[in-house]
């Protein structure tokens, strides 16, 4: 039954319960999918949802999964993601997902049930002060205390989540408010005297930026997730190509600029490419576009592009001059600012600069030595070759995340999804579920380590129940690999609590009711990938038994500078531990 099409249920003719108003408000917002989990405090809302065909509800197996799924949906689609959970533990289980969305500026709206107003503060059953708990990790949050304010609050919640610097918004819904009645009148627009985000950049600042760009000899575009959030890839391409400026991206900027383009340099930062970090070190102008000078990018901030003039385009004034002093700050939406900047920028003579970078790419490509055993880099590179960039890669956190950033060539925006800011293990599987509902046209690949997959493994059941056609690839090295790498490099190889056992993932897949494959030797990789990509009617699990001890390079250790940039050590390229050299080959990948 589609409520809005039914004349008898015309909202202006009768009083509606808060629960009905909630459902109708979501329809008005164009929400067609909600990830959630019912419970006592939201039972009325779930009753109102029951007959609604306009909204698909996905029952996850844990509330954290629901929030990550909403994030994944939003990252893949550009639309706000929606999660609905009950009070108390339902609400507290959303905390990690909300913090994750906050760190990565992802627009999601989380609706939590709450005990009845008169019970708030009484330590009632399943009561938690979720508005208090999530205050520092939401862009904004609300407790709805009057059913007459419900529709306007929902409208405002979506507006705040999706405008300015996007972020998560939580709306707490007391049970009695949702049961009381009011007339439904969804506001057409939002008027907030206290919130008016700037979209247009200041003209004077844009002119100043253009002057700096036109004078630059060795410019670099340093592009972050803000470019993807503002859907500004076309504007970025136009600017880079017109002015002939090489482009490096952050983890969240991957996909904003095609990595098969000659100006592309791949990712920068702690595990960025050798040449992008080197280019940033030697550049005379750094143009930060929707990026926030995060410590994983800059290392020691004082030495980061120390000689370069800096332009910083960001929609959030508080991101500017937070970590690094810049010469020309521009507060505004990346898309608008780049569009205004383009006509003022000349075609620069960067031939020598680009030639130098090209040489660096040849001398220091991303590389690893391939042996009999499977290396994660190889699996990821193969996925890239098979899909030709036409896939959504949803990585988890750790070594495979960095290799997924390095060894897959991202060509399109919103094809790389990961938990960057918070670094939430267990993110990939539920986020890939969410992404899958946004992208039915290309494969969605969930990449996890053996550690991360076990943090939200319950969502196997959700994937099977809804036949969510994602590829669940588990890169199993029997370790918490990134922690082990740090212990190896910086803690005298004292491997404290990083060795980890796992269930038989193939049997587990079967137990959940989906196909499972395993690759143990390198020559099995292509076969299982072919099998996995042939499954299109539901999830498929593939376990890759990969080399146990392997390190991510290049690397700039935390807080260090370009001087400490380590490329792949020579001994790593000589042989893979315990293998005979004759069957080995050096695999190379250069971005651009």
């Amino acid at each position, binding site marked *: 039954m589609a409520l809005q099409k039914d004349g008898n249920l015309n909202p202006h003719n009768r009083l509606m319960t808060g629960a009905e108003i909630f459902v109708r408000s979501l329809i008005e917002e164009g929400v067609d999918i909600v990830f959630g989990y019912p419970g006592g405090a939201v039972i009325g809302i779930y009753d109102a949802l029951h007959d609604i065909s306009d909204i698909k509800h996905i029952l996850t197996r844990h509330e954290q999964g629901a929030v990550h799924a909403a994030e994944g949906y939003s990252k893949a689609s550009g639309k706000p993601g929606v999660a609905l959970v009950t009070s108390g533990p339902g609400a507290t289980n959303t905390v990690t997902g909300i913090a994750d969305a906050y760190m990565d500026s992802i627009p999601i709206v989380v609706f939590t049930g709450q005990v009845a107003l008169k019970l708030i503060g009484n330590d009632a059953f399943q009561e938690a002060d979720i508005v*208090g708990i999530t205050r520092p990790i939401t862009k*904004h949050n609300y*407790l709805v205390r009057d059913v007459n304010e419900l529709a306007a609050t929902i409208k405002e919640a979506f507006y705040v989540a999706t405008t300015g610097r996007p972020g998560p918004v939580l709306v707490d819904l007391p049970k009695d408010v949702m049961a009381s009645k009011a007339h439904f009148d969804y506001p057409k627009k939002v008027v*907030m*005297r*206290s919130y008016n985000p700037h979209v247009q950049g200041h003209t004077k600042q844009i002119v100043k930026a253009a002057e700096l760009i036109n004078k630059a000899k060795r410019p670099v575009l340093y592009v972050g997730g803000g470019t993807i959030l503002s859907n500004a890839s076309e504007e970025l391409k136009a600017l880079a190509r017109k002015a002939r400026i090489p482009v490096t991206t952050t983890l969240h900027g991957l996909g904003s600029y095609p990595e098969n383009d000659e100006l592309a340099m791949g990712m920068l930062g702690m595990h960025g490419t050798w040449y992008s970090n080197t280019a940033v070190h030697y550049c005379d102008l750094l143009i930060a576009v929707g990026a926030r000078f995060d410590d994983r990018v800059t290392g020691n901030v004082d030495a980061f592009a120390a000689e370069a003039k800096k332009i910083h385009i960001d929609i959030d*004034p*508080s991101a*500017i*001059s937070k970590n690094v002093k810049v010469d020309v700050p521009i507060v505004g939406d990346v898309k608008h600012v780049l569009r205004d900047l383009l006509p003022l920028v000349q075609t620069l003579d960067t031939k020598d600069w680009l030639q130098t970078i090209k040489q660096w790419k040849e001398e220091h490509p991303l590389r690893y030595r391939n042996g009999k055993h499977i290396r994660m880099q190889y699996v990821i590179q193969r996925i890239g070759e098979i899909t030709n960039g036409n896939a959504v890669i949803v990585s988890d956190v750790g070594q495979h995340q960095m290799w997924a950033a390095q060894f897959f060539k991202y060509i399109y925006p919103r094809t790389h999804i990961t938990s960057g800011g918070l670094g939430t293990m267990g993110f990939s599987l539920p986020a890939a579920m969410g992404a899958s509902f946004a992208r039915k046209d290309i494969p969605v690949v969930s990449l996890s380590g053996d550690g991360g997959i076990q943090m939200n493994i319950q969502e196997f059941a959700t994937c099977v129940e809804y036949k969510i056609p994602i590829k669940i690839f588990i890169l199993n090295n029997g370790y918490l690999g990134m922690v082990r790498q740090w212990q190896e490099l910086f803690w005298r190889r004292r491997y404290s609590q990083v060795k980890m056992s796992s269930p038989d993932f193939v049997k587990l897949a079967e137990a959940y009711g989906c196909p499972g494959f395993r690759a143990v030797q390198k020559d099995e990789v292509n076969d299982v990938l072919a099998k996995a990509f042939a499954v299109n009617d539901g999830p498929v699990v593939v376990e890759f038994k990969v080399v146990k001890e392997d390190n991510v390079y290049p690397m700039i250790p935390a807080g260090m500078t370009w001087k400490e940039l380590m490329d792949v050590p020579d001994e790593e390229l000589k042989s893979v531990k315990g293998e005979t050299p004759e069957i080995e080959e050096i695999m190379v990948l250069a971005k651009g």
Partner: protein
Amino acid sequence: MSELTAMTTANGQDRKHTISILVENKFGAFNRIAGLFAAKGYNIDSLTVGPTEDDEISRMTIVTRGDDSVIEQIMKQLNKVINTVKVTDLTYESFVERDLALIKVQTKTDTRSEIMQIAEIFRAKIIDISPRTVTVEAIGSEQKVDAIIKMLKPFGIKELARTGRVALKREFQGEVN
């Protein structure tokens, strides 16, 4: 005085700032601002809040300290809070400020008149009296209130309640001779 201090202190040094914030009277709004100072590790010397001429808006006056970059971040973060309508750092402008203190001082018969004299010099009022105490109400700039407290301390201060600074921008910003 305060604007002079602000102008003459070099960069990189901590300095006292008086920040005036107009904030919507919405659920959780004050918490959001106080919580921001806690979460980001900013200092609060004093914080006052009260109604304004507009029913929907309250004014918070926060006295904080930090170097220029910290204060810049504080201003930006305060502006970022959805419920804030306007944030002003009064430190760089001429402003009027008041602080109110209620000071309960121990008295003996031979000290009472001296305490009352001190109160008079500061144009403070005696608002309560008992055989062993007097309570003085002192209003003025922070320094003035500091000074009277210092003067009364030797007699023994039993209890002290202070509002912290409230401030408004001075309308007449020109030189006064």
